[in-house]
């Protein structure tokens, strides 16, 4: 994933293997910076991913996601 790892800007990251492709995170992001991959993961879901910029670290995607470990958001 194209996740930013620098700690001075907020970012989100998706563990593509744990994502079930439900797209709930996509719809709640106020910045519309989450997209869905064309590729399938090994459980046959199209995982979500961070498009790479403008995340504010609000955490809404984290709470919208039903999976405990699919999304991680860092807000420095």
């Amino acid at each position: 994933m194209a996740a930013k790892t620098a700690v001075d800007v907020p970012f989100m990251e998706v563990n593509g293997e744990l994502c079930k492709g439900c797209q709930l995170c996509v719809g709640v992001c106020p910045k519309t910076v989450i997209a869905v991959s064309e590729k399938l993961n090994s459980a046959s879901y199209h995982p979500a991913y961070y498009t790479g910029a403008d995340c504010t670290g609000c955490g809404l995607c984290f709470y919208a996601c039903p999976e405990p470990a699919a999304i991680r958001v860092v807000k420095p």
Partner: protein
Amino acid sequence: MKVFEKSPSFYEVFERKSGPAKEATHYCPGCGHGNIHKMIAEAMDDLEITERSVFVSPVGCSVFGYYYFDCGNFQAAHGRAPAVATAVKRSNPDAIVISYQGDGDLAAIGTAETIHAANRGENITVFFVNNAIYGMTGGQMAPTTMIGQRSTTTPLGRAEQIHGNPIRMAEMLATLPAPTYIERVAVGTSKQIMKTRKAIRKALKIQKEGKGYSFVEIVSTCPTGWKMDPVAARDWLVDDMLKVFPLGVFKDESDNVDEGTWDRSFEGFVPDKVNTYLDRMKSPFDVTEELDLVKDLNCKFAGFGGQGILTLGLFLSQIGMRAGHQVSWFPAYGPEMRGGTANCSVNISRDRIGSPLVDRPNMLVVMNQPSLDAFEKDVVDGGTIIVDSTIVEGKADAKRLNVVALPASDMADEVGTTKVANVVILGAVVAATDAYEPEFVESTLRAVIKKQSLIDMNMEAFRKGYDFVKNGN
């Protein structure tokens, strides 16, 4: 820095889960249970209660709470989570006890437990996941199913005239005086989800402070049962369900009750005390000394209802009690009063008995053919099987087992009534096991048989069975 990530109150890896994906849940994509689990786990972290929390899982899709939460776990019978939670809380007052339930579990089969736990003001927290359907069993109507909603059991849609209206549990429970906090929230929009997060924390905090019963109804989704994609399901929740299930606080006394008001404990589950209680339930006979017992008896007695199978078990148990041995008697019978199948398990032991069930008997009595067919294979190698050969035509395996073919019913008829066939068999059981002296059994029977007029007949029946095994006649 703020990091939103997997809560440490979840297991790092969901080892107990079957299948390969041990870090993902077993829930369908977009299922609301996952969101709710996350917020409960986070609240446990922040309130620092994980170590003392006990999560009671229901029957339903969330039956596997113990896959996920790294705290104490119970899995209750369908609908019984609040009863189990009550027991856990009262016997462990320091525990934070969570009863997590779906709408089928809480509002259908468990309605009574739900209402009475609330009415007692148990200091527990109930998270009620209302997804308007039975998810686990494949989408049947729940008490909360919406009017017009299709399910496998309402294929034309739920209709008031046929199925009644959706039940509003939060409103109903709020009429009771005892509950401290009752709110309905939802996992629809982000704003609603954040309110759910707050309500979950508040409910657990109330319990932590001993302020009593807290109930959070969470309107949730079941995309699979509803046959919708996850996004459409959230929209339906927001646009349709909330019209019937309005969000809001229905009761909140948390500022008016003092901390510890609803703390209460019950010491009944201290093992020493339980043993004391049990010992008080000692034998009704004056047991002066324990008799020798060559071998523990694990018996199964089986036949038709009305043949005296259960009484046979009771007699043997009473003999064991009088001899100072540990005994258990466990009946199992069908709903029919007569003619149905019946069996009982009897253990007689020199040591404390762990389970009253007898899966592998060393003594089997069968008084009908179905019982022979059902239980012969369970008998341990070299065990004894007594067959009432008047009734049972089949033959037991004499190579593997010690088989006694006893025409018990005929012998009882000779005594005067078929009714004493069970006592003929008792004679054979005592003789075949050498467990007790016949005189000791006879004096016990005299003590326990209430009708004096029947005693002689029973004595004769017992001797006949005993002699048949000892002398072959």
